[in-house]
């Protein structure tokens, strides 16, 4: 079991990397009025059949598997359900996969979101060949980090060079702080 939702995101996004995605979009949205926190991880990887989706959600669903099944998605789903939310997966072979987890925002059993910026920085650093879009939304306002924009500006300078990663960390931290400060 993870201690923060952001660690679940780090873990589950790894599935998108392994699915051969070239673009992964992560959205974290707080909706105070609806008392809901929604986390979406969408990729354009190889996708899954309905049977595979079932197996990923519940590792005990079948005994007949040709590969090992991880605990990443079940942990994430458990965290969602404990807070009165749920986790769904939409997937299509050849098209990609979207994992959507909802949480009761003020539910006492909801895990803290934790260091989402650390998760995004880690994903970019470890997978610089993939494009990442991170959207942080709160009650209709948002901040977006899109590595495609970064790349366009950087030209031949690598996304994972230490200086750029340093900028990325500051960019995420400062812009998230500003989003959350503006009520």
């Amino acid at each position, binding site marked *: *079991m*993870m*201690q923060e939702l952001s*660690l679940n995101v*780090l*873990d589950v996004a*790894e599935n998108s990397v392994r699915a051969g995605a070239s673009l992964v979009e992560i959205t974290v949205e707080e909706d105070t009025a609806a008392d809901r926190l929604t986390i979406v991880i969408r990729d354009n990887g190889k996708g899954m059949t309905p049977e595979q989706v079932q197996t990923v959600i519940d590792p005990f669903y079948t005994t007949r598997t040709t590969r090992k099944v*991880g*605990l*990443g998605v079940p*942990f994430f789903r458990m965290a969602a359900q404990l807070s009165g939310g749920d986790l769904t997966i939409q997937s299509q072979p050849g098209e990609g996969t979207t994992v959507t987890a909802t949480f009761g925002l003020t539910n006492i059993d909801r895990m803290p979101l934790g*260091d989402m910026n*650390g*998760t995004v*920085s*880690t994903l970019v*650093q*470890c997978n610089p060949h993939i494009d990442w879009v991170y959207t942080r939304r709160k009650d209709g306002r948002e901040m977006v980090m899109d590595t495609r*924009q*970064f790349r366009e*500006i*950087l*030209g*031949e*300078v*690598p996304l994972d*060079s*230490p*200086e*750029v*990663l*340093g*900028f990325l960390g*500051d*960019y995420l931290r*400062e*812009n998230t702080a*500003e989003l959350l400060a503006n009520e």
Partner: protein
Amino acid sequence: MKSLAELQALREQMKGRVGIRHDDDSSIRVVVGMATCGIAAGARPVLAAFTEEVAKRGLSNVAVGQTGCIGICQYEPVVEVFEPGKEKVTYVKVTPGMVPAIVSQHLVNGTPVTEYTIGASGAQG
């Protein structure tokens, strides 16, 4: 607030320096286990600490990356150091506090921090 204009300025600064990072025989690879087990045990701040320390010291011959589960989940966070021509060194139960010593003693001076390795933990490597 940070804007993309600052990234543009950073790019101008860095333009001439691209390509000095060498991925040749002298390069050292540091990989942090980042599967479910590693992440749950605290691998993310360990990876961040290595990245920061390596950048701070300007070690252009060190690459920091991730790997999956290597099957010793009880010893996570696990960090492996690969140096050309040397045996792999495996550090176990690594915390961000251990990182500066590993970077200075091992990556810079070439002497593994034995007390943090899997051998010292009494486990089978």
